[in-house]
């Protein structure tokens, strides 16, 4: 399975963010997208997920399920948590698991991210880091080959960062692909780097 972009161009609000961007990531590889603020890291991830119109060029995922779009084979972990404060931790997760077509039991995924003791608490009472962990539980509960992570370690403590690293390593070992926008080294060995914008 290979994710590749060819001569990609990104435009937002009439302003050119980047152009002629090409890269390719194969199964088991991670790609770290770096660059200054506003270089288009988040925009690139949203374009891959199909959430932002592609101004030029194309993105292809070969070796995947041809019947489904890239977005339907990808997990997008963005800045927003997509959690409903009125629903409990477990209700939030089991909704997304069912909606996104997952089969794993929510309780297992909650144990993985260490939220099993809070499963009946409304999501409104979670801290920023706990909300992040609940979003990460979604990646565990629904198996999808492509992970698009936007600043995945933000708000996470060192223990949760180690947990995330372990999950990412497992995902890569299982033949998955990770594209992560980040300012920090995530600790993944042999991860490629894509630097956007002029070299700092």
């Amino acid at each position, binding site marked *: 399975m290979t994710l590749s972009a060819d001569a990609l161009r990104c435009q*937002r609000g009439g302003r050119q963010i980047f152009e002629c961007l090409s890269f390719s990531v194969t199964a088991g590889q991670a790609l770290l997208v770096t660059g200054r603020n506003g270089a288009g890291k988040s925009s690139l991830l949203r374009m891959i997920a199909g*959430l*932002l119109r592609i101004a030029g060029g194309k993105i292809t995922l070969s070796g995947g399920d041809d019947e489904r779009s890239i977005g339907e084979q990808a997990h997008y972990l963005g800045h927003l948590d997509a959690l409903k404060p009125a629903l409990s931790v477990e209700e939030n997760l089991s909704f997304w698991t069912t909606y996104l*077509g997952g089969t794993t039991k929510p309780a297992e995924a909650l144990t993985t991210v260490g939220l099993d003791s809070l499963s009946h608490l409304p999501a409104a009472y979670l801290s920023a880091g706990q909300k992040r962990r609940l979003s990460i539980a979604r990646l565990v509960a629904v198996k999808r080959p492509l992970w698009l992570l936007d600043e995945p370690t933000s708000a996470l403590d060192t223990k949760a960062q180690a947990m995330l690293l372990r999950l990412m390593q497992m995902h890569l070992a299982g033949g998955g692909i990770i594209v992560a926008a980040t300012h920090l080294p995530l600790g993944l060995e042999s991860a490629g780097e894509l630097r956007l914008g002029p070299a700092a």
Partner: protein
Amino acid sequence: MNGLGALFLRDIRIAIRIGGGAMIGVLFFMSVVTLMPFAIGPDLALLTRIGPAILWLGALLASLLALDRLLAADQEDGSLDLLTMGPAPLELSVGVKALAHWLTTALPLVIASPVLALFLNLDLLATAAVTATLLVGTPALTFIGLIGAALTVTLRRGGLLLPVLILPLAIPVLIFGVAASNAAVVGPVTFGTPFTILCALTLMSLVVGPFAAAAALRAGQE
């Protein structure tokens, strides 16, 4: 489709929990209808004559009140992004959301309307006619509103623009809803004629609404 069922249940659950706002529409509907006799005066004959129109206007305004939360809440917390990434087509997902929205915001209005009809001195036949037309007509309001909600979802103050966009499109529903209610009481046409057109308007909006809303959401991917 399992995922769509889960979405339906989630939206209903959020609406009926604290802060969900399912009952706000009914309270607003009550306030509007209760104010009318004060403004018009205790002329029972006049109230009877314009009662169906007052109930329809109240229901229309109350359903507009809740519309801006239909998609905006999901946009603000990032849920809308993930909804487009599920295996279900976006058209069906927004359709299911609108259905859940109708059930939690518009159906309570229909249920409350016989009670409010008492305030307006409507007799049994007129009450039944208004309730029936509201039951059939409010889905059209919700599904037309869905288009407006999708168009204004990315605007910060879209809540104010939405009613202005939607009201002109809701006029046919209002006309035939009130016409059917009046026809049942005073004639001259039979109740069935305008009521059938009202049904047709609803069926049309059920088909057009989800497709237009999904197209608007896709076009708005900025």
